[in-house]
């Protein structure tokens, strides 16, 4: 499946799609988007890349085994869930920084939760697809 056109295209598509996925992730709180969709788009970007260049190449770009994204994402999820406990609040209470950050907007524990979801989704989908592809 190594067509030069696709290879060239994915070289530019990968960063663009990844950027788009981060965009979807960050704006999820206000507009359609969010961790799930963001993670899915990012996974599609990598899958596309692996179609064009082979799974081994994609794994090289990723640097880490996709399965390692899962624990990172899950810990982020759990952390943002239990973080309010440190402040004596019930778990899952949304915590917010006072000032909005440029570009991203308001940052709160919900955002970290979304990032956790994003990472888990990428980890899960890439693990499944790449394990099968490599088999």
């Amino acid at each position, binding site marked *: 499946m190594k067509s030069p056109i696709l290879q060239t295209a994915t070289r530019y598509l990968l960063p663009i799609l990844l950027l788009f996925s981060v965009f979807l992730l960050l704006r999820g709180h*206000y*507009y*359609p988007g969010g961790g*799930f969709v963001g993670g899915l788009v990012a996974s599609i970007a990598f899958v596309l890349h692996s179609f064009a260049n082979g799974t081994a190449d994609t794994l090289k770009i990723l640097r880490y085994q996709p399965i390692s994204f899962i624990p990172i994402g899950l810990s982020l999820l759990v952390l943002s869930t239990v973080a309010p406990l440190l402040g004596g609040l019930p778990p899952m209470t949304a915590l917010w920084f006072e000032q909005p950050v440029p570009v991203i907007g308001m940052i709160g524990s919900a955002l970290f939760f979304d990032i956790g979801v994003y990472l888990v*989704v990428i980890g*899960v*989908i890439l693990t*499944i697809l790449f*394990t*099968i592809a490599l*088999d």
Partner: protein
Amino acid sequence: MELLLTLVLGLLYAAGVYLILRRSMVKLLLGIMLLGNGTNLLIFLLGKLVKGQPPVMDESVSVFKDIYADPIPQALILTAIVISFGITSFAIVLLKRVYALVDSDDLDDLNTPEEEEEDL
């Protein structure tokens, strides 16, 4: 429109049921996916159809002014879609392994001879 959608829903279910009554594992899997889609549609219909009013607020307001689509079915379906992907992928891999093992996707080939003897 609701009538058409309920028709589609019924057909999705019918096709799903028809496929899970087949012997092929791939058809079984497709059937399960169709049943999942049918159920998603069912949940979606329960929230009333609203056109062009997603449950997303305008930038200027902090409370909804207009009518808007029911967000709960949407949240439920979103979860269901993602989970069903997990299940489907697991099932596909299972299918792959079974195929590698018995070299067939006929469910009846999974019954080992001993079991069949016991049945008799």
